């Protein structure tokens, strides 16, 4: 069973988010890393890039697959986890420690789209 920390919010695309003031930290869930398998490549956006809801902001690749990452919220990229570019396997070993980007959120209304841990758990069970 996948690990779903209680203090985070989730998306149906298997991303996790953590709010801190108006800054949201985004990563991929334990379920996502497990389904992808050995992650060998991560591409992240430039700091300063403006993202709309559901914009593709990066790519994560396993040995055999390529997956786009979609922004769960609108905002401006304020920081990226550069460590991941050199060590993408960190996403497998610690998906909740290895965040990908931090966004300055521009539309608080979108926060209601995010799933609670319980909702995400149900989503996993139904898929």
């Amino acid at each position, binding site marked *: 069973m996948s690990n779903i920390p209680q203090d985070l919010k989730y998306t149906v695309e298997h991303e996790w988010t953590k709010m801190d003031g108006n800054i949201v930290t985004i990563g991929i869930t334990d379920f996502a890393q497990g389904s992808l*398998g*050995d992650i*060998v*490549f991560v591409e992240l956006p430039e700091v300063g890039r403006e993202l709309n809801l559901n914009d593709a902001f990066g*790519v994560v*690749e396993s*040995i*055999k697959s390529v997956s786009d990452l979609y922004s769960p919220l609108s905002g401006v990229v304020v920081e990226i986890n550069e460590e991941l570019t050199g060590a993408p396997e960190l996403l497998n070993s610690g998906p909740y420690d290895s965040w990908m980007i931090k966004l300055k959120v521009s539309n608080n209304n979108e926060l209601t789209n995010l799933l609670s841990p319980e909702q995400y758990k149900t989503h996993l069970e139904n898929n």
Partner: protein
Amino acid sequence: MKKTSLYQKHVDLNAKMMDFAGFAMPIQYTSVKEEALAVRNKAGVFDVSHMGEFIVEGNDAIKFVDFLITNDFLNAPMHKAIYSPLCREDGTVIDDLIAYKIHHDRILICVNASNIEKDWKWISSQTDHFDITLNDRSDYYSLLALQGPESEKLLSKMGILKNPNLPYYSALEINFMNERIILARTGYTGEDGFEIFSSAKVATLIWDELLGLGVTPCGLASRDVLRLEVCYPLYGHELNDELTPLDSGLKWTVKMDKKDFLGKESLSVYSPKYRLIKLSLDRGIPRESYPVLDGNENPIGKVTSGTMSVTTGKGIALALVEKAKFPADKELFIEIRNKNYKANYHTKPFITGGHK
């Protein structure tokens, strides 16, 4: 969807299953990387029972197979396995296969699962003037591929391999568990290894025993990475109905000095349109259908297979480029998501497998 005789074993091992050529096949069990490295360093076992098996029997068996394929089968020593394209009269590739000279009057042809029907139709339409009978035994044979440096030791221990000097790329029909099985020292990984053609019952026993001895079960994903690291072509990627073997780097398998074979006339005057090249990237992973560009960033072809190499840690690819556009300076780029990445041109496979 068809199931192999080991289907339930894969499900019980929690393998990720996927449709491949109409079969529910294990793609990976735990980790593609661990599975591929097990084959490079120790031993791994693949269920490749989806592959097709045709048996040619009769006085003209060798002559018939020699006529079918572009490679030389007539002069191959007894028990030898010969890799070859199977071509139409116009030189295009129907499939690539391995023909095993089991006896002078008994030949096993192993073909790709995705092409069984097409191959059968073609091969069975060519039998006039040959004293042979042809049987499709694809449903009978299960096929296990034990691959990796420890394979010889393991099969000796199990009493299957009696003569460890069985040369690479050869095959014997032997008795095992009161059954005639075919033991071939072949594979698709570049490592030493064996392929065992047997009944479902014997395959299940061998599978269980190998896993009991600590052999890693390996899925089709690791198999694809392994074959790409040693630059073996895969039908549907580097080979297809529109290409000739001369477009896909297989000139060495087309023996023009043979008296006659299907496709000879066309291939003898054909000038290849494409060139199959080997590329690696220092950063980024090439994938199938990504554009290949020359030094002026003009498109000259496409990646046919690409992956991250688990052995070298680099992105590697095979690509088909237009021969006329291939740049003499070999300055090449692969376009990934609208960005061009400088590619390293390789004249040799990315790694040298350890096969004998």
